């Protein structure tokens, strides 16, 4: 995988929001990662850790404060010219968290899905437009007659399928899925995750999968980045993060997941991690490589200490 050129390369991304003249919220601090074509990168962390901000900075819903984002060979972090803007707006798509809030309630599903095509003039005739929509609907497991309905006439899982169809119709290379399953029921979550996996196999698009539910992230991701307070603390393949977590925050996050095993779960106490009392200062850390794909943000002493513990 590594000999390929990365599809998306984020280098030292900073995203700050000035609130008053003296106070700035530093939402993202020096985050770097890469996504290769056709793979899924999972970003996990608690609420307020900056996951969503990163997704939005990449797709340029925010203007990054500093850092460089390269998408498919072109720089998309600075001023966008018409050509790059068009590339970004067609090749990168987003699926949002709440399917009820992100679909226009006054539009029919066919118009919601085809909006991207309309904006970028990507069809010759109305018949072609309808055909494209019908094809996409079938792909995400909806029937053609669903096209003329309104969003409120669907169940939660179906609505999220509409959201996925809207992203897919542009035939994107990268889809940013921002907590796209958090608002759904467990059994529906599984359906949507399976659907996303199938679609990836079929179309070869890459996902940036943002979530706080680690158990679902495990199923879908090839690599995972753990985020806390705007710092990327640990990144590695799914296998490495789950079987050999090194940073105490990652360990805390993993142990917080309840296991469906009552005898074990009753006696188990989740490891708790508190940034304030842990004595760590994320801004002092540098990236230390444990293996080729597994890196941790820390100082030399911290790493040595954690290694000894385990």
């Amino acid at each position, binding site marked *: 995988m590594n000999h390929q050129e990365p599809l998306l390369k984020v280098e030292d991304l900073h995203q700050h929001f000035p609130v008053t003249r003296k106070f700035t919220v530093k939402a993202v601090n020096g985050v770097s990662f890469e996504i290769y074509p056709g793979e899924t990168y999972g970003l996990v962390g*608690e*609420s*307020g850790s900056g996951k969503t901000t990163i997704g939005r900075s990449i797709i340029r819903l925010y203007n990054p404060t500093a850092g460089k984002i390269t998408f498919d060979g072109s720089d998309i972090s600075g001023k966008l010219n018409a050509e790059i803007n068009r590339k970004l707006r067609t090749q990168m798509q987003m699926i949002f968290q709440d399917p009820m809030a992100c679909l226009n309630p006054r539009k029919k599903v066919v118009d919601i899905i085809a909006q991207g095509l309309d904006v970028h003039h990507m069809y010759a005739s109305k018949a072609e437009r309808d055909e494209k929509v019908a094809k996409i609907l079938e792909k995400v497991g909806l029937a053609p007659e669903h096209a003329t309905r309104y969003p409120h006439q669907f*169940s*939660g*899982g179906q609505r999220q399928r509409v959201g996925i169809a809207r992203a897919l119709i542009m035939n994107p290379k990268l889809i940013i899925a921002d907590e796209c399953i958090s608002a759904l*029921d*467990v*059994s529906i979550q*599984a*359906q949507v*995750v*399976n659907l996303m*996996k199938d679609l990836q196999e079929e179309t070869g698009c890459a996902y940036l999968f943002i979530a*706080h*539910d*680690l*158990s*679902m992230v*495990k*199923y879908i991701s090839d690599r995972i980045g753990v985020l806390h307070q705007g710092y990327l603390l640990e990144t590695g393949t799914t296998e490495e993060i*789950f079987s050999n977590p090194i940073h105490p925050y990652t360990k*805390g*996050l*993993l*142990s*917080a*997941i*309840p*296991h*469906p*095993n*009552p*005898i*074990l*779960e*009753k006696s188990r*106490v*989740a490891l*708790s*991690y508190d940034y304030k009392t842990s004595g760590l200062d994320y801004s002092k850390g540098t990236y230390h490589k444990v293996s080729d794909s597994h890196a941790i943000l820390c100082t030399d002493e911290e790493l040595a200490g954690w290694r000894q513990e385990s």
Partner: protein
Amino acid sequence: MSEKEKILEIRDLDISFSTTSGSIHAIRGVNLDLYKGETVAIVGESGSGKSVTMKTAMGIMDSNATVNSGTILYTYTDENGVKKTVDIVKMSRHDIRTHINGRHMAMVFQDPMTSLDPTMPIGKQIMEGMIHHYHTPKDEAYRKALSLLELVGITDAEKRMKNYPHQLSGGMRQRVVIAISLACDPDLLICDEPTTALDVTIQAKILELIKDVQKKLGISVIYITHDLGVVAKVADYVNVMYAGRIVETGSINEIFYEPCHPYTWGLLSAMPDLDTDDDRLYTIPGSPPNLTHEIPGDAYAPRNHYALNIDDRLSPPMFKVSDTHYAATWLLHERAPQIELPPELKRRIERMKKEAEK
């Protein structure tokens, strides 16, 4: 068994809602028992009737709901120390409001932002119930609110009393909601998906907090949730609900290690598991039934891989598996074919048992 004190007994509860698209038969005969100091969980998909059942038990149903039949017997000790058993269904809304809600039964809702008043400091919100129900003097209520905030693990309680909900994080807000529900010393706490809106690290802390409080105060707790991981952590007994009926009930170990109903099998298999390397997640096929139509036979039959012919015609009764374990599936009938657990689930349960022995 007999020495345990029964707090709540729901029998044959049947509720329908009248809507513009006709009457929805949401609850179709629910039976439930709760004893003092125990934790009972109700699990099921959205729309299975978990919340409606518990809202009815608290007398806060929506106005378009009608209780067709059934009883909800609630036993409590009133302020004179006399033990009383009342039928919530027959009580007037006003009586429930003045005698039961807050004082004896309290509820923690899913979203802490919508259940707190954004225009009132949290301290005042905690004191409100005490002053209303017990006419507690203000300074005494203030002291109690302080100790409650400390009980639920909020540091700097004195400063926080003056904070407004928007100044607190999601986990803190849910702690405040729990403090409010405990303000009038209830004996029954109903938690309606208390952690769904929170993320995992905070979820673990809130669950441990509720457990802790329960141990300290000796109250009973009912959890409404769809997360089986949460259930495994907190519950003593589990009720699995589907389409307005309880399809399986049993102790936590019976449900997790010896499930009998195909729907429970499905739920357990659909639970993402950190230890397997399967590529695909198991999903229960189809979607829950539309309750506007009467369902002949077993409501789960159309989605059930193991459905028998009789399931289409006759709804199965509760079959007894053990003293505490019952399941509503024809598969337990003596003349039904012997069906093994799905192999994947069987492997998983065996692995869970092995892990538990360690």
